[in-house]
């Protein structure tokens, strides 16, 4: 019973003599250096990062995973905050009425074109313009938030 596995092992050990050409290992390093340089240029950054991450997590997984999760949570919070800030800025703009396609197609130099009203930007805080004659008003009392000193 014991003889057979030994026999198989001895037979398999003959495979050690299957060797590449003697110069193979001399050229291997040169090929590696050439490939590595080429690969580093083509390799996407995420792949390099992923390999490093795998090697990094391989040995201290629990601690590093904690750091990873914390980092992820901060990133998500920052993203949500930035979205909220963007949404809080109102921009009101009148919609541009679409020009009828048929009208555009029949235009030539003799046609009289009636231009549509141009869109206007409406600012919430803009003062309403008045084109009457200027009026100067001298306030009798300056505007102040201080309580009046006279009793």
């Amino acid at each position, binding site marked *: 019973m014991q003889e057979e*596995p030994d026999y198989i092992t*001895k037979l*398999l050990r*003959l495979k050690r*003599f*299957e060797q590449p050409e003697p110069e193979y290992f001399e050229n291997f390093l040169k090929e590696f250096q050439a490939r*590595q340089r080429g690969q580093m240029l083509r390799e996407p950054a995420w792949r390099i990062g992923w390999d490093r991450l795998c090697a*990094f997590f391989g040995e201290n997984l629990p601690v590093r995973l904690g750091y990873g999760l914390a980092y992820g949570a901060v990133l998500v919070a920052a993203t949500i905050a930035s979205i909220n800030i963007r949404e809080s800025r109102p921009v009101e703009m009148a919609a541009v009425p679409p020009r009828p396609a048929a009208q555009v197609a029949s235009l030539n130099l003799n046609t009289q074109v009636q231009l549509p009203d141009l869109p206007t930007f409406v600012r919430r805080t803009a003062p309403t313009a008045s084109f009457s004659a200027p009026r100067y008003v001298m306030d009798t009392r300056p505007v102040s938030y201080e309580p009046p000193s006279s009793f």
Partner: protein
Amino acid sequence: MAEQAPVNPDIELVSRTQAGDARAFDELVVKYSPRLYGLVYNMTSNHEDANDLLQEVFAKAYRSISGFRGKSSFYTWIHSIAVNMTINFLKKRGRRFQMSLDDVDLNIQNDKEFIELTATASPVRQADLGELQLKLNEAMGKLSPEHRAVVTMFDIQGMPHAEISKILGVSEGTIRSRLFYAHRQLQAHLDEFREFRKK
């Protein structure tokens, strides 16, 4: 006087590589490429595949060496990268493959075990060396990638069970049971080389 523990030269080379010295990594490539080539080649039975895979193994090791903290030896670490990449490759390749075998070194004629195997009127003596090589590789090709890895490391490369269990991240018991199962399968495929011994 306390005796100083021998310093593993790999540690220094790894530290230098982590500090950005690419030549230190080149030394590691020179040191480990013959052994790792043997591992990958004997698992794939194809020289070109072994060459491409070994290039990728070293490229991956170089990319991720900054994360290597020395909890295991560099030897174990790079062997586990090589074995895992080769197992994944073999699973993707499936059964569609062609053998591309390296030549058998003529020094085999001086090998003690080879002399022992061919001394008697065994089929090994009768068979052409090329035929024997082909049969061995065909038999290896019948094993699953995991069994092939264990057989390559134990039977061909002569690694101890403990080292193989560290590389594969499984218990020594699992290694022994995989070896037992693989040997049984190999016996079935290499039966013709046993016939004369029985007679």
